């Protein structure tokens, strides 16, 4: 195969090239060189960016409005911080802009979702453990 110095030269060459890996086959073996970081970085799934949702108005009857809180990212829906713990909100709960209404789990991280509106929860549209899509309605809120 190759001498140590030759392998070092190859490593140098790879480092300064745009390639991410080099594989060489010899009669007596194989050498595989892979650049640190670059392949994994490229393969990295970008985390769904979690901005807080913008409530969508469904119904507007003057004094009373029904709005929806939608999922700002994909993820698994949880209504409480931990199993067997009380839910963040229930039907009838009055929420403010920064009230946490649920958490969504994606890539082992839990994101807290804030109501971003003021009113009362009138309908919960998903169940614990449901996988929700971006933009999927989670709650209906009656605003005043």
């Amino acid at each position, binding site marked *: 195969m190759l001498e140590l110095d030759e392998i070092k030269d190859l490593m140098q060459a790879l480092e300064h090239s745009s390639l991410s890996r080099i594989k060489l086959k010899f009669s007596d073996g194989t050498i595989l060189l892979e650049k640190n970081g670059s392949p994994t970085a490229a393969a990295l799934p970008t*985390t769904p960016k979690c901005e807080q949702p913008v409530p969508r108005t469904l119904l507007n009857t003057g004094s009373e409005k029904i709005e929806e809180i939608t999922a700002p990212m994909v993820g698994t829906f949880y209504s409480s911080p931990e199993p067997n713990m009380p839910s963040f909100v229930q039907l009838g709960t009055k929420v403010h802009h920064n009230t946490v209404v649920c958490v969504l*789990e994606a*890539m*082992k*991280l*839990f*994101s*807290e979702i804030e109501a971003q509106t003021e009113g009362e929860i009138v309908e919960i549209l998903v169940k614990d453990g449901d996988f929700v899509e971006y933009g999927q309605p989670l709650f209906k809120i009656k605003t005043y």
Partner: protein
Amino acid sequence: MSLQIIRPGLLTSIQDTGRYGYQKIGVLVSGAMDTYSMRLANILVGNNENEGTLEITLLGPTIEFTADTLIAVTGGDFKPIIDGMPVPYMRPVAVKAGAIMKFGSCQIGCRAYIAVAGGFDINPVMGSKSTYIRAGIGGFKGRALQKGDQLNTVTPNAFGQQMLSQLLSRGAQSFAEARWYIGKTHLSTENLRKPIRVTAGLHYKYFDQQSKYSFFSSGYTITNNADRMGYRLKGEMLKTEKPLEIISEAIGLGTIQIPPQGMPIILMADHQSVAGYPVIAQAIAVDAARIAQMKPNDHIHFKLISNEEGERLFIEMEKYMENIKIAVNAKLQN
């Protein structure tokens, strides 16, 4: 940038993953008792996961921050507060200059870890920032923190700085936390109820039938003789069939040995390098971190598993840690 120690708490010291490669000359590994919590704290603030953190024990410290600082707290629940507001765990928290953070006594678990973005400005001793208190080396002056100590911190990397300014841009009064967090991993309520999984020790086969049975069925209580070196347990007496003459053997974190009085000792982070008592079992690496979160009077149950299963659980946990690291890095970047 620094942290001022207003009250030190019961036992607060700087710990990282440990001082490896020197047991052959009698220098202990030391390091965090619950390394998973310690590593997670570092990951959350964008540090190298081996960076030194503050390990706090049973009764927490009171700390003043002299500059805006990005921190993360993980591990046992000490109900920390700043200006009367609870500081959440397992997520990045931007603390404003002048804020005073008070930890109470531990409600769940025994030890918590505080990582600061950039890490502490101390020189590693033999490759580690861990405090080896008995020998007086490493960490902050080789000792547990005291009132009036001032811990300087290193300027955080770009991730840490970005996260800090992003969180502070929300107009925090004294602190602002990220709107995302890591789940409770090995310290979930469900996991804390499970028995400690062990593999058979080197001398397991020499114990009599009754002892083998008792060890796994009766459960033990952690006595007050429980520190960073080891935990002495109380419960059913254990003995070998015949007195054993053994040569001192290498031991590790989680080794469970039975001295002549018959009450088990679990060796922890500050364990000596060799020991001469019969070893009945070895707690698996993943569960040693859970033992670290147990305190005197807690009950401990053991469950026998195979070496293969112990290894599988270890690999699974490391994969989980790797995934967390990737996910958090992506969060810090966007």
